[in-house]
């Protein structure tokens, strides 16, 4: 019953707010929404404590495995942990927006609650088609939230791109589910997995490959792997900042979860995961480079999400409990750090009505907490011990080395250093720099490309602009940041055990169908390795170099000096910007090409 309640509470409160929102006072709406989310967090925490020992499975409507129809909700420790993270991020976002959006009834709160419910249901469901339904619900709510401030054309543009690309991906996922269903006559992850393993022999045939590729396409669009990633920056740039917290913190990583869950519960051993590794690694690199090239802070953070979620994908593709345990640490740490950074960006937007790095230069001096968030956030992205990202790097790296993936460590270091360096640069410029009287750099820097239409004045999300930041806008970010920076201290034993449970297909089937909690052999995850700490030191050094170089270069650009190398770099940057054109046709063409690449890399010839 707990699992049903975890989904039902936010839905019912959302329905209540949508029904009566126009007559309720604002305070009542806020309190009801926050209480509902807190209740979800409590339920998820309870589930998390019980999951390792007692089977947290409930078949809806009393249909059991004996009838062979019906939908199970299943919470293994990772699923419960994800539900908890989702609820905590939503709580932070709602508290932050306590003074936000006074204009339209209780619609914002309704949508946020529906979003939470959709993500929790998606995480808990043990059924392929049901996962698709809640995946779609998640998307539809996300489109509406992205377009929330629809007065501005760029908002509509971003939301439309998001909507179209996500929908194409989702249809392909549905086509893949249909293939599995046609072959097996099953929709449950566990039952379909058993049936596929029974028919396919040791390896999957063309149908299994096609089904896996198609299902993954929708999830990879959500997880913004290259070349499915284009929508993400457009959507993040225009979505309200509390919504970005949920997008980057959990919605995008849930795409990774979808792939991991579908693979281990249903396709384990039938298809190779190298395609996921390749596309994830590409996202890690491209996202990091694009991140450095941005000066719209929300866009910059969005590209860093692409990069870090790319690393998550590589961790899943490393195909083992060790790497998955590292990925879990990484996801938790990333969710907190990125949430805090977006909230800090929201605070800047509120005070200065812009999130353009150049316009903000030196104007953050009166905001010590926000400044500290950016500094610590940058260090967190670089993997400051004992943050979740540090533990994630160390554990995944160890597993990747055992696999012979020598390239993982350099990839992770470069991606983290570039993204951390970009955030550090923002901190140096906005919070330590001196304000420029008039900004000559701004007009002279056009490399072409769309991010420039984003620059300049934006309507503040809060109205009227607040004199000082209220505690409701400061505390949530701080809490998220602190939680993320301590996430590496989560004991490695349970995390390792949870990862072993997650990667055990028969164990999962036993859990769902027989209610037995599997206890496969597991090794505890151990983040505290010498190479892990060394990795952080190298990363943070590189990040500092990148940030200082960027600031210096900007200064020298202002005086007009520019070498051949700089010009070549600028040309390359221009190319990259042009690639991210904002043209929906381009994005769709890249998506189809991505499907083909995925198929080529997955197929066995």
């Amino acid at each position, binding site marked *: 019953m707990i699992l049903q309640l975890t989904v039902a509470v936010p*839905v019912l409160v959302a329905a209540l707010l949508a029904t009566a929102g126009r007559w309720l006072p604002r305070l009542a709406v806020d309190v009801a929404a926050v209480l509902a989310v807190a209740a979800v967090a409590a339920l998820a925490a309870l589930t998390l404590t019980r999951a390792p020992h007692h089977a947290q499975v409930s078949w809806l409507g009393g249909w059991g495995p004996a009838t062979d129809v019906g939908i199970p*909700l299943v919470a293994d420790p990772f699923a419960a942990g994800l539900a908890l993270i989702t609820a905590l991020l939503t709580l932070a976002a709602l508290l932050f927006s306590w003074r936000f959006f006074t204009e339209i009834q209780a*619609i914002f709160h309704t949508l946020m609650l529906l979003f939470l419910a959709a993500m929790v249901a998606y995480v808990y469901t043990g059924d392929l088609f049901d996962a698709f339904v809640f995946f779609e*619900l998640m998307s539809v709510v996300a489109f509406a939230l992205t377009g929330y401030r629809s007065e501005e054309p760029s908002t509509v543009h971003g939301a439309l791109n998001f909507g179209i690309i996500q929908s194409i991906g989702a249809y392909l996922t549905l086509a893949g589910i249909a293939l599995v269903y046609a*072959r097996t006559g099953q929709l449950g992850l566990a039952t379909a997995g058993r049936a596929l393993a029974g028919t396919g022999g040791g390896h999957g045939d063309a149908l299994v490959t096609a089904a896996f590729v198609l299902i993954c396409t929708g999830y990879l669009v959500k997880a913004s792997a290259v070349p499915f990633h284009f929508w993400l920056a457009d959507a993040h740039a225009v979505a309200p900042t509390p919504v970005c917290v949920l997008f980057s913190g959990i919605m995008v990583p849930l795409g990774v979860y979808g792939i991991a869950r579908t693979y281990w519960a249903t396709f384990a051993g039938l298809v190779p995961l190298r395609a996921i590794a390749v596309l994830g690694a590409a996202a890690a690199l491209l996202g990091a480079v694009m991140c450095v090239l941005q000066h719209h802070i929300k866009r910059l953070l969005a590209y860093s999400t692409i990069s870090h979620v790319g690393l998550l994908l590589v961790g899943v593709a490393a195909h083992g409990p060790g790497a998955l345990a590292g990925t879990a640490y990484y996801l938790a740490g990333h969710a907190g750090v990125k949430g805090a950074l977006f909230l800090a960006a929201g605070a800047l937007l509120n005070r200065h009505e812009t999130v353009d790095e150049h316009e903000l230069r030196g104007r953050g001096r009166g905001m010590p907490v926000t400044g500290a968030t950016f500094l610590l956030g940058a260090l967190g992205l670089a993997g400051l011990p004992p943050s979740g990202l540090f533990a994630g790097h160390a554990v995944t790296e160890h597993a990747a080395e055992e696999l012979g993936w020598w390239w993982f460590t350099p990839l992770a270091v470069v991606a983290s250093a570039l993204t951390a360096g970009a955030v550090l640069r923002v901190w140096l410029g906005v919070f330590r720099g001196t304000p420029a009287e008039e900004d000559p750099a701004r007009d002279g820097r056009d490399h072409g490309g769309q991010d420039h239409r984003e620059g300049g004045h934006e309507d503040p999300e809060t109205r009227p602009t607040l004199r000082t930041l209220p505690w409701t806008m400061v505390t949530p970010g701080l809490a998220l940041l602190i939680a993320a920076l301590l996430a590496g201290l989560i004991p490695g034993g349970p995390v390792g055990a949870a990862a072993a449970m997650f990667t055990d297909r028969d164990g999962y089937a036993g859990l769902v169908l027989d209610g037995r909690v599997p206890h496969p052999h597991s090794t505890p995850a151990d983040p505290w390795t010498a190479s892990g700490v060394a990795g952080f030191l190298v990363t943070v050094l590189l990040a500092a170099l990148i940030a200082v170089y960027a600031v210096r270069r900007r200064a020298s650009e202002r005086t007009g000096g520019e070498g051949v190398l700089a010009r070549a770099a600028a040309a390359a940057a221009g190319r990259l910007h042009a690639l991210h054109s904002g043209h929906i046709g381009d994005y769709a063409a890249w998506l189809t090409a*991505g499907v083909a690449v995925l198929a080529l890399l997955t197929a066995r010839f």
Partner: protein
Amino acid sequence: MRARARTLLFAAGAAGAAALFTAGALDLPHFGGAVHPYGDRAVHQALRESTTNTISSVNFDQRAFDTIGEELILMASAIGAVVLLRVVGKEAEDQGAAHRHGPAEVSDALRIVGYLLLPVTLLIGVYIIAHGAQSPGGGFQGGVILGTAVHLLYLAGDYPALQRLRPIPVFESTEALAAGVFVAMALAAAGAVPALNGAVGVEVGCALVLLIGKFFEQALLVREPPGGTS
């Protein structure tokens, strides 16, 4: 990207995706076979629960949780439409343009047919919902009929009457309320097919009225240039 490059990229990708899908589809079970594993189980279970309409049994009993998700998608879409289309009203106010809806030039035949069909269609909608558990039909289908029935008034050319019959706020609230009732019922007592049918019917009907209403508002808005004579 240039249009040509885009087309080439798309063609290459689409060819690859098509090859993948074709290869997969060739491994499907043959068309028209006698084995329908899920269908057999679903029918068996529906009959065991004495729901004669198997589709309703699947929708509101065996896979009621999917239906909850779909209900919520509809609710979220309706709310999303309210959010995204609210700009239209603002535009009109901001520009000081007249906000009125154009007169309808409808032939009398159409007008009469519209008025005659309205009650009949409403009745059919209710019937389809109410009999969903026994015969073909159900909340979704009936709800759509109900939602569109109201808009026969538009065909009949009586937009003011339609607006009176269709106070948007009431439909917004009722829609959300019905969705809440449905979720509560589906989780607490899945299997109460007729009642669930009813809740879905109300929800779908209201959501449809809401969506069509919002789109009408946008489509029928006549922008008169300020100071124009017409």
